[in-house]
């Protein structure tokens, strides 16, 4: 997944060599791979991820050639990391996101994965996920993914209610989801589903239906996102013109609380603000790598990477991306090297979202002073705080950004 607008940053060199700080302590850090697949059959009205339909790209040619280009970046990455003084590290997790990765033939995905494993190796039992639209998979394609090394699939279910799916511009029929989940199970894949709540016109009962329906498929993992109206999307324009009602934060809060209650009841526990898993092992390890500040290389147009406090991002358009790699140049559009303060700030921002929490001893004395107030406001779990870890309460999860700001004041 990649958002539409790229950050402003420093220029990134064509050889992809990283600043010295990237290598410091790398041997002790985990390393992941993200592969961005920037294609979708249609664009959903709410989505501003960096993805393109075949029409937008003027034909399917770039899709056909994509795997080859992506493999080229994998090879580039391995060279650049080695040349930057980083030790060889096995992949700890792999995640294919989009766009719709499963719009490509399963063979393309396994080919990219195979190339990465060949260069870096894969830790034992490592999680290898792909995102998928329910109507972009078949029994066979899922089996092929499993055989090619994938261990997990995350379906974009979004809702079980037809009128909600319609507002979201989703193409799949609700019945398609249990079918896809069953095939994935058959193939031996771990299964997650994505839900969106707070869609204009979605009632609380609609949402309850979606949650209960998702749970009835027995997934190992659920992500539930409140609908965000992103600037420049069709949804934003519809709201501006009054064609659909605006979204409402209070409605989101009520739906979050309902979802959390129903998930827990069904044995799924939160481990991150928007994510619940059946067991701690079922938590998306790749997602955790982001929040924990591990290292990862993101291949693909607009993909983001992070290695030892250096963040960079690739050019957005698939053609520009392919051109760079054809010339043997880094596809990076820009990067930033974080100083110690910024890294500390990011750590608070990221780890405070996790149920494993934030070690209070790592906070500055000023930040620690804010904790009593956060406990008084019932945003932070008091017992865990006394035991040395800052963990959000249910109310605190809903006000997570306010907690982060309080800690950073």
């Amino acid at each position, binding site marked *: 997944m990649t958002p539409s607008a790229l950050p402003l940053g420093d220029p990134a060199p064509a050889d992809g060599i990283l600043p010295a700080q990237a290598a410091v302590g790398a041997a002790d850090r985990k390393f992941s791979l*993200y592969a961005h697949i920037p294609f979708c059959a249609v664009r959903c009205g709410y989505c501003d991820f960096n993805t393109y339909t075949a029409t937008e790209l003027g034909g399917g040619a770039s899709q056909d050639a994509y795997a080859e280009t992506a493999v080229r970046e994998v090879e580039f990455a391995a060279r650049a990391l080695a040349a930057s003084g980083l030790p060889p590290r096995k992949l700890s997790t792999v995640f294919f996101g989009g766009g719709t990765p499963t719009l490509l033939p399963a063979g393309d995905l396994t080919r990219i994965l195979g190339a990465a494993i060949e260069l870096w190796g894969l830790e034992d039992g490592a999680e290898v996920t792909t995102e998928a639209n329910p109507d972009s998979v078949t029994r066979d394609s899922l089996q092929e993914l499993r055989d090619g090394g994938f261990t997990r699939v995350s379906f974009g279910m979004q809702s079980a209610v037809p009128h909600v799916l319609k507002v979201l511009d989703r193409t799949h029929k609700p019945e398609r989801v249990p079918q896809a989940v069953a095939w994935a199970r058959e193939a031996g894949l771990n299964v997650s589903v994505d839900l969106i709540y707070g869609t204009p016109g979605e009632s609380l009962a609609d949402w309850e239906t979606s949650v209960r329906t998702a749970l009835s498929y027995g997934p190992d993992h659920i992500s539930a996102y409140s609908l965000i109206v992103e600037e420049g999307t069709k949804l934003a324009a519809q709201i501006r013109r009054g064609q659909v009602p605006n979204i409402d*934060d209070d409605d989101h*809060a009520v739906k979050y609380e309902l979802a959390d209650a129903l998930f827990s009841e069904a044995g799924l526990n939160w481990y991150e603000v928007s994510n619940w898993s059946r067991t701690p092992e079922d938590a998306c390890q790749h*997602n955790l790598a982001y929040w924990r500040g591990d290292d*990862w290389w993101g291949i693909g147009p607009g993909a*983001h990477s992070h290695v030892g406090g250096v963040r960079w991002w690739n050019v957005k358009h698939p053609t520009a991306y392919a051109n760079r790699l054809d010339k043997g140049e880094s596809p990076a559009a820009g990067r930033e090297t974080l100083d110690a303060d910024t890294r500390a700030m990011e750590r608070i921002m990221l780890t405070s979202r996790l149920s494993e929490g934030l070690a209070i001893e790592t906070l500055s004395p000023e930040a620690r002073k804010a904790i009593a107030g956060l406990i008084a406001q019932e945003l932070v779990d008091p017992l865990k705080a006394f035991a040395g870890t800052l963990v959000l309460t249910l109310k605190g999860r809903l006000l997570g950004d306010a907690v982060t700001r309080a800690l950073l004041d």
Partner: protein
Amino acid sequence: MSPMARTAPVPAATDPAIIRNFCIIAHIDHGKSTLADRMLQLTGVVQQRDMKAQYLDRMDIERERGITIKSQAVRIPWEVDGTAYCLNMIDTPGHVDFTYEVSRSLAACEGAILLVDAAQGIEAQTLANLYLAMENNLTIIPVLNKIDLPAAQPEKYAAELANLIGGKPEDVLMVSGKTGAGVEELLDQIVRDLPAPKGDPNAPARAMIFDSVYDTYRGVVTYVRVIDGSLSPREKIQMMSTRATHELLEIGVSSPEPKPSKGLGVGEVGYLITGVKDVRLSKVGDTVTTFNKPATEALAGYHDAKPMVFSGLYPMDGTDYPVLRDALEKLMLNDAALIYEPETSAALGFGFRVGFLGLLHLEITRERLEREHNLDLISTAPNVEYEVTLEDKKVVHVTNPSEYPSGKIAEVREPMVAATILAPTEFVGAIMELCQTRRGILGGMDYLSEDRVEIRYRLPLAEIVFDFFDILKSKTRGYGSLDWKADGDQVADLVKVDILLQGEQVDAFSAITHRDKAYAYGVMMTGKLRELIPRQQFEVPIQAAIGARIIARESIRAIRKDVLAKCYGGDISRKRKLLEKQKEGKKRMKMVGRVEVPQEAFIAALTTAEAPKDKSKK
């Protein structure tokens, strides 16, 4: 047709007979500064390549807003029929806040160019300034400007002008400050029509200060017009109002860059530098004489500029208080009309109560403080000064609503103004309605021409000082214009309305209103604050009260969600920037008790217009 003068008359040795002192008076935007530019160019005092638009408007703020705040005097040479004349042009401020400065500039002249936009016609400040000019017995040269505009209606407005000053429409000059058309003829006419200054060269020196400006390099620069006698360098001078004496470090004329001279004689206009650092020691309207041979009688017309509106100025960040204090001290050196004293607010901490000539003066001052001293300021709702007589006969002057005495009040007096409104006849009804709701009393009405009237009202200052002009403009589709001057006071039935957040009175939001308007004010303010104050983690009741009686209430529901749920696929930079933006936004908030209140809330009371309804409550 006159070429530019070949030999300019020399200061201190200029025969009054060849001096012409004039100013340009006009409604704002009628083109005074532009015309002045053309004159500077035509007479050659500013070289073509140095010319920039509104040359004389020096301050940054003046340039940005396109208005003239401080007047300047320029000596320009002009030849007519082989005689080189010396013209002193004084550019005056056009805004009603600075009327006193205008009147002093006028007093330094024998004549005035009455400049009227040929597409707009006479407006309220044209009239106000014309009356001032007539009070000073100036000879008036009527001029229509902007005749290059396609929308210009020269015949119509020439008739209007002639009708106003009692001349013939054919005598009205037609110019364009933009193209320069007619400007040479205008300069010739100044020489022919305006009287030369008269004065006694042998009498003790008397010079009137018509402007006083602080300059970082030179200290205070005082602009004077010599009436009698003469001033010369290295001669001690004396201010007649205070009898304070100063060394004269430099004397000269502006053309328009300062040029030191051997002195200034009768009728001449120039500047003095004494080394003082505070404009208060050299006040507009005061008379300068010499220490050795002092005059006995000061020139008429001197008085202190009186502040009309008061507002609390507070730093957003309390630790900036010393910076604000120093900034005000500095600004005061440059602005004799500015007065202030420290005050504390329970809500806003340490700050200052500052008196201003009007709202524009307030805005300009605030902007200068913020810009020149890198400050972030909150200004509280502006207020007029009330005179409250208690039952025990004690009199208090209230410039801050939170100091309004509670109970035991015998009488409250509020300042009044005499307002003149000019507008096309079709708007008379709307204007009268507006003035009535503002507690105005009709003083009279005159037709300036068939389709234009002058309406005079006596109104409470408090009713016109904030948003009256904006509303007048919108009710008259932009055609109405306003001028006013102080006009005593009146007894009024006033009450203090308090605003409470979470049950606690916020002194910065209190206001004094007429009893009949208290309810409307309470409803308006609580409604606006509900829109402007973001949701907090707890419910915030907002109430308006007179004493213990609640007259309006609103409530801001507690925020329930403030977290970004979506994971941006590793784009952590985006999430971090979002957070930084949120933190930045928080800095623009002032903690009032436990409530975060944005800066805009403090100026909400400035206008009675409805708060924007579409503002999303995040």
